[in-house]
């Protein structure tokens, strides 16, 4: 699905990623853990095309194409989805309007007709129930006045409607209480299938209790320093990041 080779990224003169290598085959869930400032969010931003980062070396191949050459909206239309750590508010634009505009942009890209208004409403009303969100959220301005948990659910709702092939979850668990975490995790798990891959960024092992990863990577100081199975996360939880950093040093 996606292949990251020797990726070096800097902000201004400051090197953040210093040679990241990562392969995520279709259908797999990979978790990236690591201490603050390791470059986790930078990785998610560079993959989704946010401005302000310079790729100084390396490549990212996604479904056989050079991902870094695509505009952010083209990456999205090709199926790259970022669930934001801090979803923005867009006053005046209703949630359902945004969802529909986004879905139609993707459909247009695939050469399909715009979605029928009634079909769309039925689809959205069906999906919103699974995330235990009230229908009134559809008609509120995007994320405006939403609680932290509501914003995160809203991100997953968007993923559910847009059906991307590669999902990046950037600290989706932060700011969630345990009940919300269960709902969001269930939403993500419902999306799992053999054609879809996930890159899950988190500080805590807790999320991995609900969304079981295939592989866990540790990112420290701009590099992936250790990879392993789900048990690696438990070990990290017990021993702390220092343990890995010391091992590498």
């Amino acid at each position, binding site marked *: 699905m996606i292949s990251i080779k020797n990726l070096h990224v800097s902000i201004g003169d400051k090197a953040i990623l210093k040679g990241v290598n990562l392969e995520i085959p279709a259908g797999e869930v990979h978790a990236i853990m690591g201490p603050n400032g390791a470059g986790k969010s930078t990785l998610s931003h560079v993959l989704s095309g946010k401005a302000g980062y310079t790729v100084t070396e390396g490549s990212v191949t996604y479904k056989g194409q050079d991902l870094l050459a695509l505009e952010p909206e083209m990456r999205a*239309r090709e199926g790259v989805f970022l669930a934001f750590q801090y979803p923005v508010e867009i006053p005046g634009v209703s949630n359902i309007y945004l969802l529909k505009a986004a879905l139609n942009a*993707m459909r247009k890209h695939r050469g399909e007709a715009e979605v029928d208004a009634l079909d769309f409403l039925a689809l959205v009303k069906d999906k919103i129930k699974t995330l235990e969100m009230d229908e009134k959220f559809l008609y509120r301005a995007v994320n405006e006045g939403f609680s932290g948990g509501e914003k995160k659910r809203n991100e997953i709702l968007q993923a559910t409607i847009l059906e991307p092939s590669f999902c990046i979850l950037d600290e989706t668990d932060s700011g969630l209480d345990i009940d919300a975490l269960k709902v969001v995790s269930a939403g993500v798990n419902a999306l799992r299938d053999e054609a879809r891959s996930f890159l899950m960024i988190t500080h805590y092992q807790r999320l991995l209790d609900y969304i079981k990863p295939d592989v866990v990577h540790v990112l420290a100081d701009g590099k992936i320093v250790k990879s392993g199975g789900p048990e690696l996360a438990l070990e990290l939880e017990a021993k702390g990041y220092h343990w890995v950093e010391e091992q590498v040093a």
Partner: protein
Amino acid sequence: MSSSAEEIEKVIGQKYKDGFVTDIEVETFEPGLNEEIIARLSAIKGEPEFMLEYRLQAFRHWQTMKEPNWAQLKIDPIDYYSISYYSAPKKDSDKPQSLDEIDPELLETYKKLGIPLDEQERLAGVAVDAVFDSVSVATTFKGKLKDAGVIFCPISEALQEYPELVKQYLGTVVSEKDNFFATLNAAVFTDGSFVYIPKGVRCPMELSTYFRINAANTGQFERTLIIADEGSHVSYLEGCTAPMRDENQLHAAVVELVLMDNAEIKYSTVQNWYPGDENGVGGIYNFVTKRAECRGANSKVSWTQVETGSAITWKYPSCVLLGDNSVGEFYSVAVTNNCQQADTGTKMIHIGKNTRSTIISKGISAGRSQNTYRGLVKVAKSAEGARNYTQCDSLLVGDKCAAHTFPYVEVKQPSAQIEHEATTSKISEDQLFFCQQRGISPEDAVSMIVNGFCKSVFKELPMEFAVEAQALLGLSLEGYVG
């Protein structure tokens, strides 16, 4: 036989042979402004005596006036004596013969707005065949209005057909001494619309300048007078979403609305004059005086405007609320991009008891433009129980533009309730990136956010106007992103 056929052909083919055309052939006036020019203008229009007097009075007063300079605008000096104040309507042979002769960029814009081909021809000023669809449309339309007793015609025609009616109302809302531009207009206006809705009549259709016969060539000094008699109701649409080309740089229009007891006027405008290029070269100066007088009790006037064009806009549609319980509303979206400047807003003058007014103003600035809201809410001592609500929001797109807000409030009646809310926001990089990450292009994202921002005004527009206005907004801001 064949030679006589040729003969006939020859005669028919000739143009403007003596005695064949009844119209007096009129040349465009030489540049200049004096009493003689005004007298000639009035004579060409075949105006009644009182009209010439009115014009001359205005002109004499105008000569004593100075251009206003209080607005937040930078205006290059205008030489009013080097303008030609009358130009003969273009002959068909002087007009472009087909759309092939029109600026491709303009055609591209028409296409984006989804304007049908024959309509594109009309807008671009292409000479069209004698039998043109809209003529028959206009005729049926005129018949229907006539049955209802509604008068809707060019003001020049009204001056000939209904001189008493015009005389009774013209200049009673905006006097010929009102302000520099209105006074100039009173002296030299060329044409415009006249509407009279009789007592108790609900106008059977929305009146649009679009359907007015002789709509072309109203010139740079347009004059509009609308009278809604007791208990009548009318919705009037002015302008067009397609970009209007005009060789005249200075436009100074006057619009007067008169409302009697229980009358209601809804006046909607989409203004899209040429704004100049991205460096601010060219573009129309639009200095407009629009005012409504609610003379009757329980009357209601509502101004809705979407302003996206012109290099400079100076415009404050106002409501004088004389009648008890009368209501004034002002809903405005003003967009400026590139080097455009707009100083626009409204005046609500509360005189009658329990008068109410609402102001919703949405200013959007992009590029290096300057967008100013200027509003006055005035409550006279007589206006017991007056209420006003003002909401004034500015949206900045990019970081080289500016938004200014100047609300003036003068209250002499202690029971009045005045509310004012204002916000300024900016389209952030994060919002754009978020939308892009959901597959939406930056242009569409800006358009979506701006439309969301303007929603409360758009819902006041007549349906089809609202749809066009949304498309127009997207176009006006195009080219900002990137």
